[in-house]
């Protein structure tokens, strides 16, 4: 019982939050349409959080994801403005994301800079680059092809007035890929070993540096994907638009981590973390709670949701 609380406390917290909104907003909250809506709203955060999970499995951080998302959006938009097609822009943006992520990987794995310092440095660099190449301006309007901005509005129709949004599908695909990579492949298994004990992993024949390098590359790729999704959703790109993603993504992974006994991240648990953040925003808005009170409530609920799974985990 007590041990069930420790593992499922955060999940129970999430279920309670959902039940609360279901009771308080009986007509609109627990509908397929609203949940599809929520899924679309959190899809960008979800993608960043999923790939962030990969580096956090190794005990590392990537603080640069937010500025990388902004930079990727800007890169695609600039390519569009210069008359390139949608796929060229998307490929360029993803390429920049992968390269930026691999640069983080070099700094962390081969140069040996603490992930926090290295990615804080590149956070500043990527953000500066985003401002620099865009001239600090928002790129929007005719510059953004409708084939690109239309993607975020498209979806697979499910029923009358209800469709599965394309952004949700992207997030689901990323979830599956990350889950498969982390839980089903030897690559993932090795990342978990690195997270558990770097030295033991190395002595047991794991190429710690190469794997850390690659994992940061994946995180950069995820950030760029989210940046493209964001740009498509707002039909524009500006050099700061991804900045809110980093802290929320790390928070989502940490929320998920409270659900595993050893405190290691798992991408399915990260999904719950993302949903907690997303559902709170959606439900409290629908309840017309004042912005400021809403903030206080969100913080308190997050703390309460994990409290039950944490109680007594420390000693001394």
């Amino acid at each position, binding site marked *: 019982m007590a*041990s069930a609380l420790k593992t499922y406390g955060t999940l129970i917290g999430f279920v309670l939050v959902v039940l609360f909104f279901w009771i308080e907003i009986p007509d609109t909250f627990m509908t397929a349409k609203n949940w599809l809506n929520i899924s679309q709203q959190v899809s960008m955060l979800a993608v960043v959080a999923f790939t962030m999970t990969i580096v956090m499995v190794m005990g590392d951080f990537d603080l640069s994801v937010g500025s990388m998302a902004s930079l990727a959006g800007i890169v695609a938009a600039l390519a569009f403005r210069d008359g390139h097609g949608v796929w060229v822009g998307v490929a360029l943006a993803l390429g920049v994301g992968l390269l930026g992520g691999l640069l983080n990987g070099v700094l962390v794995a081969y140069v040996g800079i603490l992930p926090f310092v290295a990615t804080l440095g590149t956070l500043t660099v990527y953000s500066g680059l985003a401002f620099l190449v865009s001239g600090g301006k928002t790129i929007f309007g005719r510059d953004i092809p409708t084939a690109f901005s239309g993607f975020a509005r498209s979806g697979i129709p499910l029923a009358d007035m209800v469709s599965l949004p394309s952004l949700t599908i992207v997030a689901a695909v990323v979830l599956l890929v990350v889950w498969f990579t982390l839980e089903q492949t030897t690559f993932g298994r090795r990342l*978990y*070993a690195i997270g558990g*004990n770097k030295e*033991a992993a*190395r002595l047991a024949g794991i190429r710690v540096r190469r794997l850390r390098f690659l994992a940061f590359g994946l995180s950069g790729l995820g950030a760029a994907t989210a940046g493209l999704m964001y740009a498509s959703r707002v039909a524009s790109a500006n050099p700061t638009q991804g900045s809110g993603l980093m802290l929320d993504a790390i928070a989502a992974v940490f929320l998920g981590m409270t659900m595993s006994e050893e405190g290691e991240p798992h991408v399915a648990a990260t999904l719950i973390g993302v949903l907690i953040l997303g559902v709170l925003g959606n439900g409290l808005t629908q309840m017309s709670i004042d912005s400021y009170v809403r903030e206080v409530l969100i913080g308190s609920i997050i703390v309460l949701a994990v409290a039950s799974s944490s109680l007594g985990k420390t000693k001394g």
Partner: protein
Amino acid sequence: MSLLSIQDLEKSFAGAKALGGACLDVRAGEVHALMGENGAGKSTLIKVLAGVVKPDTGSIAIDGAPVAIGSPADALRLGLRFIHQELSVVPHLSVAENIFLGRDYPRRWGVMIDWDGLNRRAAAVLAGLGVTHIPPGRKMARLSVGDQMLVKIATAFQDASVDGDAPARLYVMDEPTAALSAEESQRLFAVIRRLRAAGAGIIYVSHRLDEVMELADRLTVLRDGATVATRDIAGLQKLEVIELMIGRRFAEGYPPRLAPVSGEVALGVEHLSTGYLQDVSFEVHKGEILGLAGLEGAGQSEVIRAIVGADGGHDGAVSLAGRPVRIEEPVSAWAKGLAFLPRERRQEGLVSSASIAGNVSLPHLDDLVRFGLVLDRAAEAEQAVDLGRKVKLKSKGPKQKVRELSGGNQQKVVFARAIAGPPEVLLLDEPTRGVDVGARYDIHALLRELTAEGKAVVLASSDLPELVYMADRIIVFRDGRVATTVSTEGLDQARLAALCFGSPAAPSA
């Protein structure tokens, strides 16, 4: 009246019983050995006493008065001192600070820490153990593991007081000598005898039976978490102790060699040098066990680490079956059929948050895939079960977390990893540390089987009998150099000890 009396202690972890009716009675002025197989519950009992683990039921009394020990601070306040099985030091603090951890530091003018005074007092505590080569101001992380263990032991013997503390009166030591050389062990025993003479009680856990017979006054044997007997040492035979522990008859000793050593060279090392090692050359043949001996820090570990590329570059050449190989990282060592068992299971060997199966499979993951990248979990579990049986691993199954295993069982996991495959050459640094007599025999038997199949073994050990009986030849290291190479034919333990010291006569220990 007894100093400490423990009655009917019970403790289960998630339904699995670690203690089920453990009783222990310790008198003032005695060394009381606590014996039992790996996983019998010794460390758990000690953790209960230390306030680290809360028992389900049972009672603890000191001087006949029942006490409640809710935290390590409570235990210290009652005058209990501990040397726990797992080395727990603060690496980035100095030796002196580790010794005085949690105590009051001496101060100047009542405000500033008197660092000189602290270091002097720490040096005095170390000197009481006969240790003079460790500078008290050095960072703990800079010390060799053996030296760290000495500091950890010294910590239990410092007597700086904290308000309301009872003076130290019961010392509890969980396998303190597992990481010590014979010489250091002797110094520890001298301190223990001194404390005993001064009227303190000592609870002593060790898998080294000779040591126990030499030091202890009485012993209590735990089996599956329950006390099965308490006896006086006087008049007791070693074999009786073993039979009490494992509950059946047992022939003590070492398994005999199964096949002769072949003439073919399995591993060749030529002119190997690192920052510390100087010009080390040797060969190991197929079917041979080559022992590495020497005093603490003489270079045995470094040789093994250098061969597998654990510390980066080195000068010199390494060849496998006559073919030269370049090994700059452990990953290539494993890939080329070298297995490596590092000396420190917790820091260097295990991912304790992972399962038994996950730990065993770590270097062998590439052999456990389907479709090129999917991990074959069934095969992985099967491997762990298979090897676990061979090394007499006591666990709830391959999925159990290594963190939850007893110290000796954790060691068996690292050993199981090294023999999976099996590899052509095994490089083993203290492979039986903390393993009970029964399982030790099985591990030695496995080594015999492997050599009979033509595998080569390099065995570094501070346990001299193990070297003398298991190895075919022994290289003795002194100060990073090969001092001499001897055959074990007709070699006895005293002679080997003398070679390690570099003196022609046996030491007077």
